[in-house]
């Protein structure tokens, strides 16, 4: 009987996620044991990117709404977590105009990351209701405008962010293992969300907004709560990134980065978690290789002029090619099925 669900079925249903987690952890062990520090760095960065892309997938992949604002919430999380965890003396020196109350805050990194996530979610909750009523082109433009607003506030509010200047002295926290654990937790969260009642209703509204309304789905509410949840992941991801990179400025959370995260998601396939995963891996590996190539070209004297922006151009071209060749992404909308998973 197909209608009977056994425990085995439940495990096999999640086999994709289990396999992705296994790959992440296994590679981490290999990296930790054998690889040179450069590889460990790249892998840590990949895991942090994966957290961000999975958070983006939660809302954008399941709702079909292009979410430009996302990277703004990454920034909010990064700043809030950094302000919470950076020692007072460092802040007093690094951010001369900071409000005294903020300078005094000092706490361990883990709660700081969570507060970063909550603040990002709270900002999302405060601004998203009108945004979620909009669809199609209008929605995309409005979300883009929201990113600009967040960016301007970040660059101008120098009592909090140090303005356009660099915020430095953030304690290093995001090691390889922290990043891997974070990525694994986010993988499970994104999967549970996708299969939850909320995620299912969100996917239904992506398929056909009007039909969803007709069967009693409150599309605006479903989008709203998903957007807030997605922004929480963005905030935590931003915090982890800040505690990896240790110094950053608001320009790290703007169009270039938004575009990079979107590319990671769209290349693999925004509709599925395996898509988000593979897109992140492909784009990260490609960027690193191109960066090496660019460095080598400029230093070795093989060509007589200097090359800049090879990575950006290539990532953009990759996106164009994918969108023409496979608009749904390499993996597409449904999760990859493993050969040993039971055929339904």
């Amino acid at each position: 009987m197909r209608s009977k669900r056994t425990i085995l079925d439940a495990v096999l249903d999640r086999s994709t996620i289990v396999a992705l987690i296994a790959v992440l952890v296994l590679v981490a062990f290999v990296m930790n044991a054998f690889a040179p520090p450069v590889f460990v760095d790249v892998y840590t960065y990949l895991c942090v990117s994966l957290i961000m892309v999975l958070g983006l997938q939660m809302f954008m992949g399941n709702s079909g709404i292009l979410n430009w604002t996302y990277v703004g919430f990454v920034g909010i999380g990064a700043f809030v977590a950094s302000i919470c965890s950076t020692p007072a003396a460092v802040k007093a020196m690094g951010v001369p105009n900071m409000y005294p109350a903020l300078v005094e805050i000092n706490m361990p990194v883990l709660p700081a990351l969570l507060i970063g996530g909550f603040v990002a979610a709270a900002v999302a909750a405060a601004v998203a209701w009108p945004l979620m009523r909009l669809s199609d082109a209008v929605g995309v433009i409005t979300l883009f405008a929201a990113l600009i607003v967040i960016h301007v506030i970040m660059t101008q509010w120098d009592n909090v962010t140090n303005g356009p200047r660099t915020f430095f002295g953030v304690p290093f926290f995001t090691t390889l293992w922290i990043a891997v654990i974070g990525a694994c937790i986010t993988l499970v969260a994104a999967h549970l969300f996708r299969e939850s009642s909320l995620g299912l209703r969100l996917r239904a509204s992506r398929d056909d907004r009007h039909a969803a309304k007709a069967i009693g789905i409150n599309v605006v509410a479903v989008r709203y709560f998903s957007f807030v949840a997605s922004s929480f992941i963005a905030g935590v991801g931003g915090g982890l990134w800040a505690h990896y990179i240790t110094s950053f400025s608001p320009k790290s959370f703007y169009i270039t980065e938004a575009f990079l995260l979107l590319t990671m998601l769209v290349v693999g396939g925004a509709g599925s978690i395996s898509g988000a995963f593979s897109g992140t891996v492909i784009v990260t590996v490609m960027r690193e290789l191109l960066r090496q190539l660019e460095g080598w070209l400029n230093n070795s004297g093989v060509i007589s002029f200097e090359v800049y922006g090879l990575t950006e151009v290539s990532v953009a071209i990759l996106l164009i090619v994918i969108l023409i060749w496979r608009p749904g992404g390499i993996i597409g909308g449904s999760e990859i099925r493993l050969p040993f998973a039971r055929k339904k």
Partner: protein
Amino acid sequence: MLTVTELQASYGAITALHGISLEVNEGELVALLGTNGAGKSTTLKSICGVLRPVQGSIEFAGESIMNKKPESILKLGISMVPEGREIFTSLTVAENLRLGAYTCYERSRYQQDLKEMFALFPILEERLSQPGGLLSGGEQQQLAIARALMSHPKLLMLDEPSLGLSPTMVDNIFELIGMLRDRGITILLVEQNAERALKVADRAYVLKTGHIEFSGTPAQLEKELDIASVYFGGSKDKSSEVTL
């Protein structure tokens, strides 16, 4: 059970319903007939809350459901199968069914409901993990009806369930509608296929350009009104027609 009084609805400046009144009693199968633009779908959309009526009243089980949100109306027990089988094409059959049931959270009941649906629609069990978009038109219609039934509706509203189906499939669908009626489900059926609809209906209303032209039993209707005139006689007042 459902009482609609003097309902007026419009799309912007165009009035689609000029104050219609109709009633559906418990256990009845009521057919709502009429040409394109008569206001049939508008009536259903107003009842299920997708469209906000301008004036009038809609009462369900003694409670006014005018201007309530679609999800609250669904929870009160009105389920609609929209025109054109609006199933979710990229979601699997199982997910489509789950969406129909999301108002009732009991897991045990959900499994039982699923089994009932498989008994009614065996094809759905075979296709459980396929995307809805891969189903044929008739299968999609079955899925749409099954999805609506998953919420245990007191009143099921079907909007043109035979639209665009093969003749054999139309037979199947009407057989199914008859079966649902025999099970005691109250049904409000909108159809262009008047002949077929009248065969299964207990009572019928005929809508014409936003007015109720006739109401009564199918036998009365056949006696008093030439069905063909409803569809082909046409009214000269085309200005109030809208495409639904």
